[in-house]
């Protein structure tokens, strides 16, 4: 049987139902009534004991959202979402308050175990006194932070790392100053929805001149049936500060499509640097394309000060639909933006992802390395925008955008928008599309590699430029995840 044929057969037989992380933790939840109205917004705000200004902000967003249309320009298709058919808030009932790890529901800890959170991080979650690694975990279980660790040590450095709800209560001045300053209330349909109903998320503030003493890490987990997830994250690096933030996600299996619309805002002041890394491994749907997470994310970083730098690194392997464009606004003179991405689609997944680099300041530079891998019957689109405004003298961009196809029923697409209003801008764009050839597969097999080993080897070679951008904690995990995601993509 010709290899391609064989590939197709195997892809047909992928048992996506065996999704490794498909399980539901049984914990009683407290939910807002189904559907979305001003009352829902008030319910959420009240649940979180929010100040009046926050409620007003949410309500303003909600009213604007009512006038907005769902965007349709992305290369993804899905049945119309009934926004009244979701729960917009749920909270594990047994939340003990984030002070003591001993109080945490053992079910939750068992969940982390199944997720394969690295042992050292589990150690921290389990409250072991002298954990071997220095990764602080702010675990978000459904909508509420249930554990925050290493807080004391971070506090010593003056770093604030807490849930956004807590930040709204404890650090209202910082929150009011920066929240919504990168992604405005009516930025886009999903961001506006998020603003109205966001449930929780993380808040980070690194004070002037401080290098955050450890990587900050959050694991997100969607757990409740029909719970829309609306995380809100705000990270501020004050002048000369540095922080590396890791976000990792997996979700249990379910039939209903789950809506997820997060907003992440990053602010880097003068000479500050933020490195934001994501590994996204949500449920992609079953072998017939049923179920799976709808992931509509707005992530944007503002290089607000001179010589500031923001790097996005993402490994996207999950979700039925991914709509995600982590972007950088290069406002400060000499600021730098980076986007490193690995986006893998298999089965019936649809990925439309990329970045925007908006050059506003002088001598700003940006770098985009995107690796898209499509297998099965998936569609994988890179959408990138690079613009230089009139003031942006000497703007530089380098874009390298490669696609790899596995089998012949998938698609890879590249949609670059490039615009320079300043004639000194130098934008370079490279793009390639390749396919794992039958000859390459046979060569590997002849040397004794199995089909899966061969694909993993070739794919890992294809993505290694991006993998090496990930912090060590993530690189190994991501590499494993890539192999797992492509399991069954060929014979």
């Amino acid at each position, binding site marked *: 049987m010709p290899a391609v044929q064989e590939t197709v057969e195997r892809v047909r037989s992928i048992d996506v139902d065996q999704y490794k992380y498909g399980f539901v933790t049984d914990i009683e939840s407290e939910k807002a009534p189904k559907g979305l109205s001003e009352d829902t917004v008030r319910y959420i705000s009240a649940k979180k004991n929010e100040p009046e200004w926050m409620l007003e902000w949410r309500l303003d967003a909600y009213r604007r959202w009512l006038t907005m249309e769902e965007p349709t320009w992305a290369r993804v298709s899905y049945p119309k979402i009934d926004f009244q058919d979701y729960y917009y808030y749920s909270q594990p009932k047994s939340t003990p308050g984030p002070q003591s790890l001993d109080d945490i529901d053992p079910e939750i800890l068992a969940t982390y175990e199944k997720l394969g959170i690295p042992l050292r991080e589990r150690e921290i979650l389990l409250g072991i006194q002298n954990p071997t690694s220095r990764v602080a975990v702010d675990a978000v279980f459904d909508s509420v932070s249930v554990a925050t660790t290493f807080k004391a040590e971070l506090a010593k450095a003056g770093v604030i790392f807490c849930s956004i709800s807590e930040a709204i209560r404890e650090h209202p001045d910082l929150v009011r100053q920066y929240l919504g300053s990168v992604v405005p209330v009516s930025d886009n349909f999903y961001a506006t929805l998020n603003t109205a109903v966001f449930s929780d998320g993380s808040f980070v503030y690194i004070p002037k001149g401080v290098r955050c003493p450890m990587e900050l890490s959050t694991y997100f987990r969607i757990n409740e049936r029909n719970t829309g997830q609306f995380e809100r994250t705000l990270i501020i690096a004050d002048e000369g500060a540095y922080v590396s933030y890791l976000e990792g996600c997996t979700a249990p299996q379910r039939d209903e499509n789950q809506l997820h619309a997060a907003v992440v805002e990053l602010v880097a002041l003068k000479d500050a640097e933020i490195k934001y890394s994501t590994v996204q491994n949500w449920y992609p749907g079953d072998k017939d394309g049923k179920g799976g997470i709808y992931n509509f994310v707005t992530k944007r970083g503002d290089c607000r000060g001179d010589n500031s730098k923001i790097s996005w690194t993402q490994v996207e392997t999950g979700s039925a639909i991914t709509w995600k464009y982590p972007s950088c606004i290069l406002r400060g003179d000499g600021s730098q933006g980076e986007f490193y991405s690995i986006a893998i689609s298999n089965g019936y997944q649809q990925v439309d992802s990329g970045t925007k680099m908006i050059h506003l300041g002088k001598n700003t530079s940006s770098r985009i390395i995107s690796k898209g891998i499509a297998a099965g019957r998936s569609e994988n689109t890179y959408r990138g925008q690079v613009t230089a405004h009139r003031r942006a003298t000497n703007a530089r961009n380098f874009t390298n955008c490669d696609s790899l196809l596995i089998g012949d029923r998938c698609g890879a697409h590249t949609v670059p928008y490039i615009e320079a209003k300043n004639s000194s801008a130098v934008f370079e764009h490279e793009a390639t599309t390749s396919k794992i050839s039958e000859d*390459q597969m046979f060569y590997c097999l002849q040397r004794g590699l199995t089909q899966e080993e061969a694909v993993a080897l070739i794919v890992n070679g*294809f993505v290694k430029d991006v993998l090496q951008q990930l912090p060590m904690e993530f690189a190994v995990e991501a590499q494993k995840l890539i192999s797992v995601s492509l399991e069954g993509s060929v014979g």
Partner: protein
Amino acid sequence: MALLEIKNLHAQIEDNQILRGLDLVVNPGEVHAIMGPNGSGKSTLSYVLAGKPDYEVTAGEALLDGQNLLEMDPDARAAAGLFLAFQYPIEIPGVATMTFLRTAINAQRKARGEAELSTPDFLRLVKEKAGDLGITQDMLRRGVNVGFSGGEKKRNEILQMTLLQPKLCILDETDSGLDIDALKVVSEGVNALRAPDRGMVVITHYQRLLNHIVPDVVHVMNKGRIVRSGGKELALELEASGYAGYSQDAA
């Protein structure tokens, strides 16, 4: 027992019958040379034995150590000890040669239920064998066969063969593209692998290679069959007279 036993092998590709009743027996320790005109099916034979997709075996059998090769997946054939040095080695961009070698060695070890080679052992081994073949550390860092010259690709094939220590080595025109010095180096590499329990099938157009790798048996292949077999002097005869006398042999 014969190491390789091929009986009445018929194979086709896209409805073109290429192998038409080929018989060949290679005993442990023997080196067999196969010569024959372009298009006679020499590479096809090597691909069919290695299990390349697209080739359909329509009759006959092929046994390696008594195991039915034709029923095994290509990777299982490799793990069972079959190695093919490709006439045209394949490029795999992005995958460092070093990584490829290591993955291959460990994949075969795993398939045979053996433990992985430790990193220091692997590095020592590669360094030594690559040095013998004049393969630089820089080449080992590059993508598999990417940017390698024709001769470098062939040497890389022999390096892989040396590291994998197969039972049956099939070399498809390993000499083409090699300069005189490289021919010597490669031949030495191949000769170093000659062993009482190992067999080799050396496909070549030129007697020159057989001065370095002296065969026990020389076969002439034409139109998908072995049409004549003899000792090493047969190669000299072919060098002098060409294949003119064989074209009408096979109907």
